[in-house]
């Protein structure tokens, strides 16, 4: 018996969101959005994609990583290298670069993940922090291998290929795929490891395999975000991928809610718009207060809502039918 599937709220939401994003794209084509704001909008998407990756690793699988920016950086440098070394690909240059960035980030995540994912909680965090530090040092010395990577002085001359449309398409894809993943047998396996690794093993879940899987996919998302970042700002500095950048992503994921895609999107967009947006809007006399108020807001959010904005909840339209409350 074949049942005709009705169109659920998920599809409606997707249609509305795509319509909205196309509208924005229309405004951009019409020249009604100034370049600053375009860049911030793109950056918001980049932040969301990267943060979704960390949420998969930490929020869903429970593996504490303080080195996310390293994979973001790996993706950025790899894709920038690809588009610089292989010019003439036209439209395909950016996707090629992004795929390469994702793959390299994924392979390195796999190699580093195999040994260090055995570590638990804080110790894993510290090991990933150490890995991030080492990658940062390597970025600073990258000119010794590839002159064009520029080392501590930074990498210049990257083509500006990232457009709002690219970012929007990839961000929507990332949300949809991640949503499909977490509401599946794989997602249940990942969450069960977060909840109780031993009990997960006791119901047949190969925890090593799934921890590695979650880590690799999450780091690939960071790699893609890094690639978009590189071709948005056209200049890479190792300091853009240091420890503090890992902390930024962590803050977004926790503030949004660990294990909530909706929360990560809200917190990621909000973070980028507020923090970067205020840079333009505020008069320079008040600028310096921006970073004083920001941590206070963080602390207050944690004191008032220690589970983050969304907790572990999702917007209803993100949930498949059998996860929605009746």
């Amino acid at each position, binding site marked *: 018996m074949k049942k005709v599937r009705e169109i659920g709220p998920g599809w409606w939401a997707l249609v509305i969101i795509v319509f909205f994003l196309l509208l924005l794209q229309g405004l951009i084509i019409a020249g009604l959005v100034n370049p600053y704001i375009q860049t911030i909008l793109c950056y918001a998407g980049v932040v969301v994609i990267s943060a979704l990756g960390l949420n998969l690793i930490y929020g869903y699988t429970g593996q504490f990583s303080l080195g996310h920016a390293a994979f973001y950086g790996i993706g950025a440098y790899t894709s920038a290298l690809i588009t610089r070394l292989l010019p003439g690909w036209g439209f395909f240059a950016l996707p090629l670069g992004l795929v390469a960035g994702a793959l390299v980030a994924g392979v390195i995540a796999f190699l580093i993940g195999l040994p260090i994912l055995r570590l638990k909680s804080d110790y894993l965090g510290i090991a990933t922090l150490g890995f991030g530090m080492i990658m940062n040092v390597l970025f600073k010395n990258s000119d010794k291998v590839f002159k064009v990577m520029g080392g501590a002085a930074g990498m210049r001359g990257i083509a500006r290929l990232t457009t709002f449309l690219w970012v929007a398409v990839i961000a929507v894809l990332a949300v949809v795929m991640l949503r499909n993943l977490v509401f599946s047998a794989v997602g249940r396996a990942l969450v069960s490891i977060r*909840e109780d690794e031993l009990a997960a093993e006791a119901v047949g*879940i190969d925890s090593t395999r799934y921890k590695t899987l979650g880590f690799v996919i999450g780091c690939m998302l960071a790699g893609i975000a890094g690639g978009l970042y590189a071709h948005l700002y056209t200049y890479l500095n190792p300091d853009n991928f240091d420890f503090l950048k890992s902390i930024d992503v962590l803050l977004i994921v926790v503030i949004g809610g660990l294990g909530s895609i909706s929360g990560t999107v809200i917190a990621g967009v909000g973070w980028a718009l507020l923090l970067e947006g205020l840079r333009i809007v505020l008069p320079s006399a008040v600028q310096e207060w921006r970073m004083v108020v920001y941590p206070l807001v963080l602390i207050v959010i944690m004191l008032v809502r220690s589970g983050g904005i969304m907790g572990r909840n999702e917007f209803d339209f993100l949930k498949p039918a059998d996860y929605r409350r009746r």
Partner: protein
Amino acid sequence: MTNNLLEIKGLTKAFGGLVAVKDFFLQIAPGTLTGLIGPNGAGKTTVFNLITGMIMPTSGAVVFQGRDIVGLKPFQVYRLGISRTFQNIRLFGELSVLDNVRVAYHYRSDAGLFDALVRSPRFRDREREITERARELLSLLGLELRERELAKNLPYGEQRRLEIARALMAEPKLLLLDEPAAGMNPAEVGRLMELILSLKERFKLTILLIEHQMKVVMGICQQVAVMDFGELIAEGTPAEIQNNSRVIEAYLGRPGGAGVA
């Protein structure tokens, strides 16, 4: 070659200087219900942990269906058909009741990562099958109305039953229950006993159970093994055990100990 489902031979586990399980033997024939009893700290749960691969024995063998399973990881032991519950309930608290059960069938699904990402027809079919089986178990255990609650929000007795449902998901041959009646009131205990018997019948299970409430052990077990200080001190039918002086001593203490009364 014997036809026992499980044979534990000379199992020993030392933690540093402390010998938690000492030269322990146990045979379990298919289709039986065996009780494992003994005072607190006797090493019963350690035996479960050793069988399920959660800790490695210092020496000895655990033979399941003719195969020594020592050295296998817990998930591998589970896939061979041994599942368990935990003394201190280890559910996935932030997963729904339904997902707690569905997750335990995961390895049987041949729908992979890609199927999940794009929600392929194969993925949908497998999800439906898994969900149907999970719902069937939940209703057997009287949890069908709870399927969308988070596991951590269930009352204690229902959490215990949910853990049993989860353990049954992958059609185990041997079920290990670690104090299933702990914290239940007498009425609940009575229902639990009936439940265990009916599940055993329905799924053709072999059961090994640790229990402190003697009412349960004496009421439903065919065979009882008694541990004290890591060793097997007695084995037999419930009636034999009940009148065994070593057992009474291990449980209640020796009446009228010297120099006390």
